[in-house]
Structure formats: C-alpha cells, structure tokens
C-alpha cells in the first residue's frame, strides 16, 4: 500500500477545498440558513408538530442529508473530473498507485469535506431550532456511510462525464429531485397512501428516515431497512468503481 500517495492526493484535494473556501463551505451554510428562514420560520409556524417534534427541528436531519448528498456528489465528481478535464490525470495514472489508493485519496477527501459541511450545518441549525440527538453514534454512522457512498457516486459521475453539462446532469436531474421527494421536508405519512408506496421506491427516503431516527427516534421505515439500503448503495458504488478501473472506462483507453 502506497500510503504516502494516498495522503498526497488527500492533502492536495483538501488544499483545493481551503483555496475555494467560499464555495465549499460558506455557500451551503447560507443556503441552509435560507431553508430555515423559509421552511422553518415562514411556513413551519403554520405547520403543526410532526410526531411531537416542531417542524423546524423536524427538517434538520433532512436538510443535512440534502446537503450531504449534493455536496458529496459535487465535491467528488469535480475532484476527479477536473484532472481529467485539464489532463493532469496522466500523473496519477503513471504513478505507482493502485486503483484502491486513487479512490481512497479522492473519495476520502470529498467525503471529509461533506462531513465537515454536515457538522457546520448542524451547528448552524442549532442557532435556529432546539436540537436533540438521541443516538449520536448512529447519527455519526449514517453521516459517514452516506458521505462515503455518495462521494463514490460522485467519483463515478466525474469519470463518466465528458463535459461540464454531463457533470451537472445527474445531480440536477436525479439527486436533487430524489432528495426533495425523499422526505427531507415532510414525513411520508403526510402523503396520500398511493404516493406513500411510490415513495418507498426512492432510496433517499431510507437515508433520511434512518438519519432522522438517530435524532428524534421517529422514522418512516425501520432502522434495519435504512441501514440495509445504504449498505446496498455502498456495495453498488464500490462495484461500479471496481468495474471502471478494471475496464479503464473513460480514463484509460
């Protein structure tokens, strides 16, 4: 294992985040605050408590998940797309590093960034609403697994994308809608029965539900189902990454 190479890629990527501190950290914080102002204060005041939790507090886990998913995907996809786009990827490919090491470096850095972001949003949220975390260890587990899984997905998108349009396509057309329809801002009990069934096909529902359970002990689906779902995702992403490197898809003709 070339740990020095993993560390080198990791630090280089993290340095990129510090250079772009404004985009990386400040803008998600601002947009989260906006969500709280609009959904929490303006609309939330007219919505009754959800299963004993005030609406403002209820949406915190969903919001963090929303940011975690979108930021993991965009961080990781950009992290690998950029060297591919500028051509500097040649150096990583010609170095004595294995595919596992390349993924560890890039995905590790992207996941770290979204975890830092998640923590910042959590702190920001505590200024707006009273927060309670019943199961901190579970919360951390869901955070880490989700950040990892969606950073891997971002990595895949970054390799698949041949241009900036494609890079934006998946987050815009798939990730964001799935998150908004994944119960970030509501409990799926609030939907008509038919839609409740449809919603169960949305993988994000399981992530948000499990994550919310770690805060307030309330969930739309069982904890086991949530955990299983994220592990299935993780395995799928890992398999896809393995396939990419095995075939050299889009990076090594």
């Amino acid at each position, binding site marked *: 294992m*070339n740990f*020095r190479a993993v560390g080198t890629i990791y630090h280089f990527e993290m*340095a990129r985040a510090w250079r772009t501190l404004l985009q990386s950290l400040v803008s998600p914080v601002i947009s989260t605050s906006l969500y709280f102002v609009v959904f929490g204060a303006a609309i939330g005041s007219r919505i009754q408590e959800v299963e004993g939790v005030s609406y403002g507090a209820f949406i915190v886990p969903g919001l963090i998940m929303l940011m975690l998913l979108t930021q993991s995907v965009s961080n990781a996809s950009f992290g690998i797309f950029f060297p591919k786009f*500028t051509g*500097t990827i040649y*150096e990583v490919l010609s170095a004595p590093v*294995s595919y596992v090491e390349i993924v560890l470096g890039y995905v590790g850095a992207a996941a770290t960034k979204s975890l830092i972001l998640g923590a910042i949003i959590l702190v920001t949220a505590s200024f707006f609403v009273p927060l309670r975390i019943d199961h901190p260890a579970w919360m951390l587990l869901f955070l880490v697994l989700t950040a990892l899984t969606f950073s891997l997905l971002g990595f895949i998108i970054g390799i698949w994308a041949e241009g900036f349009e494609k890079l934006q396509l998946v987050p815009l057309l798939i990730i964001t809608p799935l998150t908004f329809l994944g119960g970030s801002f509501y409990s799926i009990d609030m939907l008509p029965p038919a839609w409740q069934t449809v919603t169960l096909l949305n993988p994000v529902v399981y992530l948000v539900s499990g994550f919310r359970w770690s805060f307030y002990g309330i969930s739309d689906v069982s904890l086991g189902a949530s955990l299983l779902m994220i592990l299935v995702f993780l395995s799928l992403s890992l398999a896809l990454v393995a396939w990419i490197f095995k075939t050299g898809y889009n990076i090594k003709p």
Partner: protein
Amino acid sequence: MNHDITANATLDEAATADVSEATDSVIAVQGLSKRYASGFEALKGVDLEIRHGEIFALLGPNGAGKTTLISIICGLVNASAGRVLVDGHDIVDDYRAARRQIGLVPQELTSDAFATVWNTVSFSRGLFGKRSDPAHIERVLRSLSLWDKRRSKMITLSGGMKRRVLIAKALAHEPQILFLDEPTAGVDVALRRDMWNVVRDLRASGVTVILTTHYIEEAEEMADRIGVINDGDIVLVEEKAALMRQLGRKRLTLHLQTPLAAIPDALSEYPLTLADDGRVLVYTYAASDEHRHRDGINALLNDIQAAGIRFTDLHTEQSSLEEIFVNLVRKDA
C-alpha cells in the same frame, strides 16, 4: 525497400547486441500492439530495446505511434497485445516496481491552474511514494530556473515556464528512466538549452532518457541511438553515428571556371549532374561507400583534369538526419 531497411537494422542491432551485454536493456518492448476502440491501429507489433543509460530518440511523423508507445509504457493506455518490461518488471503484473523508475514529461501542457509550482512538484514526489525532500525539490527547481517562481500559481506562468514545471514534476521522484514526449515543441532557445543541460546531467548520473521528437536536429545533437517509427511500425533502430554513415548521402560540389552545356562523354560513367546553368558539377555518393569512393573521387578528379575542365572551388557535404528521415518515411509510404 522497407524490408531491406528493417532487415539491415535488425542485423546491425544483433551485431551491436553481441558486443554489449544482453542484460543491458532497461526497457524491453515485445510484440506491442494497440488498436483503439475507434479501430485505429496505432502500434503493429513493436519490438524495441532501450539500453541502460542511453539517450534514445524516437523519430516519426505525426500520428506514427510515438505517444501511444510511451503512453503504454507509462501506464496511460492499455496495450492490445504484447508486453513491456521495465528493468525486468512487467508493466502490468508488477506496475509499481516498473512505474517507480519512470518519470514522464507529457506532450500536452497540463497543469493544476491554482496550485503553486512548489506544491505541484511536491505533489508529484508524494504520488510516487517518496519521502518529502525539500532539498531535492530545490535542486530540481534551480536546475530548471524555476526557483524564483516557486510560489507562483501555475495559471500565472507562461507556456515555457509550464513546460519547465512539467519537467520538474517528472524529476521530483528521482526516476531512473525519463520520457520526454516532444519536449521542445514551441519552446524558446533558453529553455531548450536549459533542458539539454538537464538531460546531459541526468545521463551523466546514469539516467536513461527517451525522447520523441520530429525536430531532427534535436536527435542529431543529443541522441546516442535513434529509432524511427512510422505508421505503427519501428522502421529502424540504429546508432546515430552509424545511421549517419550508412544512410547519409555525401555530395562533392565543383564550381567550374567555364560553364558546361552538357556532361562530357569522357565522364559519362560517373553519377554527375550539372547545376546552376552548367557552372556547378555535382557528384553524389553514399557516405557508407566513402572508402570505395575515395578512389572514385581520385579517378573522377583525374578524368575531369584530362577532359580539360577547370574548377575554382570544391567542397563536400553530408546529408543531415532530417534528409535521412524524410527519405526513410517517404520510401515507406
């Protein structure tokens, strides 16, 4: 014709291989082929041995397969068939050991726009798993006149400076083999001079250098051996000096006192041509036949005297590698 040249080259290679030791090769390319997904066949069963510590120039027109060959050896492109050993290590099965030896300066000017020179060069060293060594990085940067620019962001550098940084990146991990893919394309005189100094120093310290170029003067000035690749085939591999001797044409030019309307019958057995309205007589012969033709020149000059032709000046010249190369590639086409 192609066949003759290849056969000659192989014979000569065998002859020189006997002299040097068989274990001397640092890179062994065996039956290497590459067919891209588009169906384009970039390499057609290439065999090539690079010797330890030499400067090897790979010449060839655009699209001949130079970059594909280098890319496969360095791990950027998968081979379709054949194999490559770097210092005895297979580039696929034992890629770590193989790649650790290699530094690559790519043809394209690629850079991390917002990273500083120092960071991007240090990044390269770390990527190759080497312990950080600021003193080494400093030496490399100074040798390439980059020390003053170490805190500059890549985006602020000129094209020539970026090229220097790419070379510094390739040298950051102290490679034993350096690939320079078209290193002097669009590069000014100062950088070219710096670069050749670096290459000479590297060679003196035992580093093997492989460069691709279509600037022939570059190969002529620097290389120990020259390989010519055309249309995915290695057409010839030869010591530079031997190549010049074997394939170079020599020309004896005589400036005549009085112009000739035609070559006199007495001289008809010589391959002579008239130029410049009959004021110049040109005699062309192969440089490799020099010994045989020395008598020829003697005889020719005697016969010219006998024919009553007076000349005011004479000189001989040898064709450059460029002419040799153009001839080779043209014959091939």
